[in-house]
């Protein structure tokens, strides 16, 4: 469990990162010009990351891209099929369904995560006794494994014995069969994903909030702005770069890390209602042993993520985003 000092340290670090000139949207200039580049130190610090990044991300991506042009079942020799695997995607009803379900999960998972992260961060940014403990509690989902969380939430959503339906029954509501309903299963998964994802977003927002110049808020207050207007016109624009960061991080998490949650909670069901693309890719690769087609689907997923990232933050003139 994270303690308050750890939280503070993380918060301060993030604050420093967000307020760092390197992270700023506008180029910073200093009076003193750097005349010597310490290549040795740079190499020492950067090389391990570059090496691992290349080994575990770049190489698999390149291999997957190559594999997507082959048909291979791990038994017989790979057979070159050109673009057949890509052409097959739109004709594959399960693939299309999984892309639609992925889009649905993004909609009901990413947007609420960003909003909840921001609102909780605003609340957590206020000062009152015990706030550090509350912040630590908010961060607890970060330190629980996804699988353990999913097992826990499966019980929480149990239609007969789960606490959610029990509480609903106290107020006369007959709760749905959350994980056995094609309508409710995905929202249930989204709730878990929001719960797992919002602490990181909150942490990033919290760091950004603490870097806002207090005089801006004081000026707004003097001008008669109420709380909502201060949030809407001062705070929200000030944390916009962090919103982009939270959105991208959450999007990546929803697209790739939701597999554990869905595998444990619903297995992609009922009736494929929670079968998102990453779950389908897993089934195609390791259950049906179609490594080539799974690689094509993974490549398609990469393209989707790239397009979404570009839509969220289109490249600007001068090459700075």
């Amino acid at each position, binding site marked *: 469990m994270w303690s308050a000092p750890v939280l503070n340290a993380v918060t301060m670090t993030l604050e420093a990162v967000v307020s760092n000139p390197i992270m700023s949207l506008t180029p910073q200039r200093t009076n003193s010009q750097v005349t010597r580049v310490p290549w040795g130190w740079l190499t020492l610090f950067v090389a391990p990351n570059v090496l691992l990044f290349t080994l575990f991300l770049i190489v698999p991506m390149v291999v997957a891209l190559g594999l997507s042009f082959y048909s291979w079942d791990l038994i017989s020799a790979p057979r070159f099929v050109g673009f057949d695997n890509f052409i097959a995607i739109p004709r594959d009803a399960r693939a299309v369904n999984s892309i639609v379900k992925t889009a649905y999960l993004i909609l009901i998972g990413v947007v609420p995560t960003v909003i909840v992260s921001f609102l909780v961060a605003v609340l957590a940014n206020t000062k009152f006794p015990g706030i550090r403990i509350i912040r630590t509690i908010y961060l607890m989902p970060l330190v629980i494994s996804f699988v353990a969380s999913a097992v826990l939430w499966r019980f929480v959503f149990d239609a007969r014995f789960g606490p959610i339906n029990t509480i609903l029954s106290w107020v006369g509501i007959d709760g749905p*069969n959350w994980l056995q309903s094609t309508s409710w299963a995905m929202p249930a998964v989204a709730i878990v994903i929001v719960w797992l994802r919002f602490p990181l977003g909150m942490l990033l927002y919290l760091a950004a909030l603490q870097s806002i110049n207090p005089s801006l808020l004081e000026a707004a207050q003097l001008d008669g702005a109420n709380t909502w207007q201060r949030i809407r016109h001062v705070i929200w624009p000030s944390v916009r770069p962090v919103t982009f960061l939270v959105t991208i991080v959450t999007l990546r998490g929803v697209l790739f890390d939701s597999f554990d949650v869905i595998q444990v909670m619903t297995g992609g069901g009922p009736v494929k209602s929670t079968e998102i693309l990453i779950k389908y890719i897993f089934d195609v690769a390791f259950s049906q*042993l179609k490594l080539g087609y799974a690689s094509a689907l993974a490549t398609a997923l990469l393209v989707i993520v790239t397009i979404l990232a570009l839509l969220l933050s289109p490249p600007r003139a001068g090459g700075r985003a």
Partner: protein
Amino acid sequence: MIKTGIGFAPSRRAILQGMAAAATLGLPAMKAMAATIPTSGKLTVTVLDFLEAPLKPVFEAYKAARPGVEIAYEVAPSHDTELIPLMLARALAGKLTDIVFLFDELAALYADAGITADLRPYFESGGAVTASYFAKPFLDQYLMTSGDKKGGYYGLPYGADTVVQFYNKKHFDDAGIPYPTGDWTFDEMIAVAEKLTIRDGGKTTRYGLAAQIPWQATYVPGIEAWGGHILRDDGTVDLTSDAALKTFNMYWDQAKKGVIASYTQSPNGDIWSAFSSGFASMTQTVRALVPSFRSSMKDDWDVCFTPKINGVHKTGMGSLALDATPSGVANNADLVYDFLTWYYSGDGAMGILSSTYAIVPPVESLYESPVWRNLPGPPSNTSVFSDSIAFGAINPNTIPHAVQSIINKELRDAEDAVVLNGADPAEMLANAEAAVNQALAEELAK
């Protein structure tokens, strides 16, 4: 077929009882054993995770019987999506152990991938264990009937598993219902299940029967009892026949009424736990689950035959297996063959595993053996396990694994659509069949 995922730890007493009882088995003379007993060497084995506990004492017993021989085992995950890539990767890397354990569904895949070896040379090696030594239906699961492996045996049965009806005696007593004798029809069984079902408002709080409906050991015998077959003459999968529709409907209708719990209705999708926890009064499963039920159930319970369907007795049947790997045969044949022969001998695994309630020996001459029949209950009605072999139905091993995984997925979805959303069963089965046969065509086109 028998993928229960249930592990158990046999007690030392049970093992000793088993070994003592094994002496009374009266097995055929083990010529090979008497001829050459190895005194050195190392044997490596890959076991499925849930088999580690029951096999540990087997390996210990082998080491005790072969001083100087070292045996090392490693554990592999039992879930297909982890197991298959692991084993295929090991085969590609030339890192297979000498012996592997496997599921019947994987027999053809493992054979094609060079993970398992053809055992005909072993049968012909002059030892006591030959093809005729085993109960034919269980060995035939591992007989390849097509392709370049045709005629070869790529596995030896781990046990003789048939699906029988397990019932909670306390639930029957509480409801004032006489225990089933096994001489009953499906409708009579459902009538009993209805009486055992408890509802609170509109929700079932205790199911009469927990049944794994989209499991081949459930639907294949049902389809055959209605006069159909899971495969057509042209090799395609038939889920739209009248027999298939009747089979699925008779289960799904009761699932919709809240009398039968299948995957979705069982807590965490665990049907067997639904029975052992008292959430369901009856279930249909195999002997491999007996150790788990014995250790976890508080109520008394017993077994009987599954009911007749359409006036015909049919039940699911199958077995896990073990086999030598090609590298094991090539590099370590003496030790591999010795282990297999010892394994199926009286003082080998048959006695030890039988004494722990885990298996019915897959050897016809042992069907009446006291080593497993005289174990104290529950279950008391042990003859059911061997007697039901006579009307067992086995899923065809010609269905490729990749296609079987599609069948499992599509039938599970069809069940959810019918039971949860009230979809038309005929339409759902037609959709499932189309997806399955498309996958089959793609598989055959490779």
